[in-house]
C-alpha cells in the first residue's frame, strides 16, 4: 500500500540532480559527492580509482540506507588540486580502462571463433542503446544539460506510440 514505486530505484525524480556536491566543513579541500540512483557498482570503483591518485588523501563511500537510492562519496585531496579535478581524471581514466577491457575481450572472442565472435559483436553493437567505446568522446557532450541526465537508458530510443 505504502510501498515505494519500483521504478524509483533507477529513475531520477524530476528536477533532481544526478550529482550534488557539498563542501565538508571539517576537512580542508574535501568535497562530498551525493550520487543519485547509483550503488556500490560505480561508487566502489570510483573510491578505488581515487585512492590510486597520488594527490588524494582520503576517499571513501557509503550507501546510507537500502531504501534511499543514492551513495555518498567523500574525497579529500592535497592543496595542489581539487576533488572535482581528481574525480574527472579518475572517471576519464576508468573509461579508457574499460574500453581497453572491452576491445581485449572482443579480440579474444575473435581469436576463439572468428565468425561467431563477429556475429555476436554485431548483435551487441548494432542497437543505438549501447554505443561502442569508439563513440565516447562524441557522446559525452550530449550530456551537457542536467535534464538530459535525468533520462534513463531506455529514453534514448525514439518514442513511437502505436496503440493496438
Amino acid at each position, binding site marked *: 500500500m505504502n510501498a515505494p514505486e519500483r521504478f524509483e530505484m533507477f529513475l531520477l525524480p524530476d528536477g533532481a540532480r544526478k550529482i550534488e556536491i557539498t563542501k565538508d566543513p571539517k576537512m580542508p579541500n574535501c568535497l562530498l559527492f551525493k550520487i543519485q540512483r547509483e550503488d556500490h557498482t560505480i561508487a566502489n570503483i570510483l573510491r578505488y580509482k581515487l585512492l590510486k591518485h597520488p594527490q588524494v588523501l582520503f576517499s571513501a563511500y557509503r550507501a546510507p540506507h537500502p531504501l534511499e537510492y543514492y551513495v555518498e562519496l567523500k574525497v579529500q585531496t592535497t592543496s595542489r588540486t581539487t576533488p572535482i579535478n581528481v574525480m574527472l581524471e579518475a572517471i576519464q581514466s576508468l573509461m579508457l580502462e574499460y574500453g581497453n577491457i572491452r576491445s581485449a575481450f572482443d579480440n579474444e572472442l575473435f581469436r576463439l571463433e572468428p565468425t561467431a565472435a563477429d556475429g555476436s559483436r554485431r548483435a*551487441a553493437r*548494432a542497437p543505438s542503446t549501447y554505443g561502442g567505446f569508439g563513440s565516447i568522446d562524441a557522446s559525452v557532450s550530449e550530456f551537457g544539460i542536467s535534464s538530459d541526465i535525468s533520462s534513463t537508458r531506455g529514453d534514448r530510443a525514439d518514442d513511437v506510440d502505436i496503440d493496438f
Partner: protein
Amino acid sequence: MALEDRNRVVILEDRVENISGADFPMSFDGEDVPFHLEGFKKTFDIKIIRLTPTDIEFDLIGVDASIANALRRILISEIPTMAIEKVYMINNTGIMQDEVLAHRLGLIPILADPNEFQWKRPSDPPTDQNTIVFKLDVACAKGRDVPEGETDPKIKYINSSIYSSQLQWDPKGDQETRFAQNPIRPIHDDILITKLRPGQIISCELHCEKGIGKDHAKFSPVATASYRLLPDIQILEDITDDDAELFRDCFPPGVVDIVEEDGVRKAKVINPRKDTVSREVLRHKQFEGKVRLTRVRDHFIFNVESTGIVSPEALVNQALDILIEKCEISKAALDSAVKGNNEEE
C-alpha cells in the same frame, strides 16, 4: 605485507590473510603505482577459457576486485530483458491461486531481443514497441478411451499438466513481420506452470515488458554470474614417497601429480585451477611448513551462465558497455553539477 605477497591472499587453517589489496601509492618503498592507462595495460589480460551457447568462463587478470565486482553486479542486475510483467486473469479455477500463478508465469524466460523494444514507464500506454502479449487458454478434460484402472493422470486426463510451450504468442502491430525470423516464445518448452484436473480452466492474457534485474529477478539475463580467485599452491619443501601420495589425495583429482626426479617420487602441482581450496592439506602434521595455500588477488575466474535470452559473450560485452555508460553519465553529471554550483555562487 611482504613484497612477494603483494598479490596473494594467504589461506591459513583458521583464517585468511592479506585480503585487502595494496596497490595504492606509498604502500611499498620506491614502488610507483600507475594511475593511467599505460600502467593498467602492462598488467591487464583477458582469456576466454570456455565458450558454449549458454556458458562462458573467462579469466580477468590484473584488475581490482571493485572492477570484477562491478561487472558481476551489472551482469546480474542491470542488463535489460523482456519478462512477463502483467497477468490479466480472465478465469482461473485451478488449484493454484491467481497471484502464485502470475508469479510463476513471470519467471519464465522469454526469447525476445530486448534491444528491439522500448522501455515502458508506468504512465505509458502499451504499444507494439514496448509490450509482448501472450495468451494462455487451457482447460483440463477427461481423456477418451482410458483403460480401466489407469492411474497416470497424463493418460487419464487431457491437459493435466500445463507447460510453458502452451503459451500462445499474440503478435501486435508489426511484430509478426519484425520477428518473422525468430518468433517470440518461451526459451524452454518444458517448464511446468501448474497442474489441472477435469473441469478446471485457466484463461489469461500476459503482457511482457522490458526491465532490469534490479527491479525484479525475473529480468536478470543470467542464471549465475560469479567469480573466484585463482588458487596457487606453493610447495616450500619437497614432499616425497608416501607423503606425496597423501598430499595428492588432499586435493581434487588433477590438481597434484607425482613425478619422479632423480629416483625420488615427488609431489608436483600441475593444475591449481581445479583446486577448491578445501584446506584439507593443512590438517596433516607432516605438511606443516612445507606447503602454503594462496590465491592470486588480481586473477578472477569468471563464470557466466545465460538464461538463453542473450548469448553469454554478448552479455559480457553489454555489461562492459553499461559500465562505460555509467562513467559517461557520472562525468556529464559532474560537469553539470560543477556548472550549477558555480551559478549559485
